[in-house]
């Protein structure tokens, strides 16, 4: 099958360092719009670090350094004078552990990105909250208790709340760093289902340790090892007929 959608995000020769240690080496990746791309690999292979270079979170760590280029819709997000906060609004992030703001209600958690940006229109905020919660498949469960604290929800619901929060600012791209590793199988299944729906609206890049999850939910998969992206292909190809021996060994559990 040919790539029908144009690429939305391009990483070119990305290097990432922590002090002297090079965690990511010359990674090139072209992400198709409205697709789900999974990044897999053993612990410490650089996949999460690479993910964090894609919305300039990597540079927040003291001693961290970046080289290369990342383009969102052809805009170089590392260009001099670019505000990283504006980039992170366009390239949202969902983390491993659900992290709703503890002092905020469910509703406030969802719209926090908008209120921080100065949007005050009650109608707009409420409409956006409903839309984002529906897109995150959480609306039916919380619509009658929007004023309850975000932290009153179950782990799986909290993670969907975080996805709703990321969606509320309408980012074209969302990054997810092991979003289900702290969740039970039912909550995991809900989030996986959600990915299929979300990609109609956004492009998703997900780091996961769960190979079956990558195989189930992603259109493309990249395999990382020792900071390099060893192989990138359609997930159906990578998980059935990987080209590189190291990919084969990793996904069949021969090392890692």
């Amino acid at each position, binding site marked *: 099958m040919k790539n029908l959608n144009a690429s939305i995000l391009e990483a070119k020769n990305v290097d990432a360092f922590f002090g002297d240690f090079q965690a990511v080496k010359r990674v090139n990746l072209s992400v198709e719009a409205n697709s789900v791309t999974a990044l897999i690999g053993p612990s410490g292979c650089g996949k999460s670090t690479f993910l964090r270079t894609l919305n300039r979170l990597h540079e927040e760590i003291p001693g961290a350094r970046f080289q290369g280029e990342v383009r969102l819709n052809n805009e170089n997000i590392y260009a001099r004078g670019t505000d990283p906060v504006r980039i992170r609004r366009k390239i949202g992030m969902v983390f491993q552990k659900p992290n709703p703001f503890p002092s905020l209600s469910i509703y406030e958690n969802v719209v926090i990105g908008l209120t921080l940006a100065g949007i005050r229109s009650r109608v707009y905020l409420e409409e956006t909250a409903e839309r984002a919660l529906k897109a995150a498949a959480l609306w039916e469960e919380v619509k009658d208790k929007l004023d309850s604290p975000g932290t009153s929800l179950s782990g799986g619901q909290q993670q969907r709340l975080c996805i709703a929060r990321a969606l509320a600012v309408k980012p074209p791209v969302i990054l997810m760093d092991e979003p289900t590793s702290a969740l039970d199988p039912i909550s995991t299944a809900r989030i996986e289902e959600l990915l299929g729906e979300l990609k109609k609206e956004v492009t998703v890049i997900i780091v996961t340790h769960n*190979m*079956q999850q990558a*195989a189930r939910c992603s259109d493309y998969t990249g395999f990382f090892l020792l900071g390099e992206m060893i192989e990138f292909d359609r997930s159906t190809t990578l*998980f*059935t*007929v*990987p080209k590189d021996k190291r*990919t*084969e060994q990793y*996904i*069949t*559990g*021969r090392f890692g």
Partner: protein
Amino acid sequence: MDRSIDAGLGKLKDKLLVMGGFVEKAIEEATIGLVESKPERFKKVHEYETTVNQLHKEVDEDCLNLLATQSPLAKDLRTILAVIKINTDLERMGDQAVNIAYNAEEYLSAPAIKPLVDIPRMADDARFMVRSALDSFVRSDLKLAEVVLAKDDEVDHLKDQIFRELLTYMISEPKRIEQALNLILIARNLERVGDHATNIAEDVIFIATGKDIRHGGA
């Protein structure tokens, strides 16, 4: 370090080898019964086929369990998919051995029409194909798999030769059409055994390379 799936895959390979052994023996017994006019040998064919059927079910169950418990990927996944198909091919070969025995029994119930030369050759070739296909599977021997594919052309050629010869015979001896037809059916059964062995060889290539060469695909 052995992975937990390795023990299961090893067991599957062993079972397929055992099945292949019984299939070979079944074809051999059916052929000996025919060529040496020893209908008592046909009983053995049924016994072997019953064993093959039993293993057929066991292998399918083992594959199902491995799929459910090991979530195999890449070569492991291709191997299990291939084993499921090889399993069916072997079971069908067992059926063909029974068909040969049945047609041979019919043939032996009336006077012979000619000395049998090509059919025993075909049977030898078919057994060679079964054995080699399974050896190529167990050893991941692609060259041997290619040998099996080439052999199938020879078996097809022999079948065509037998068909031509017997058709000529039927035209000249219309009263013996039924006898000739029994031999044609046996040749057809053996040719089918060769086709199933060919399927196995194609699966071996798929496991090793991920390439699907069936139906002329490269």
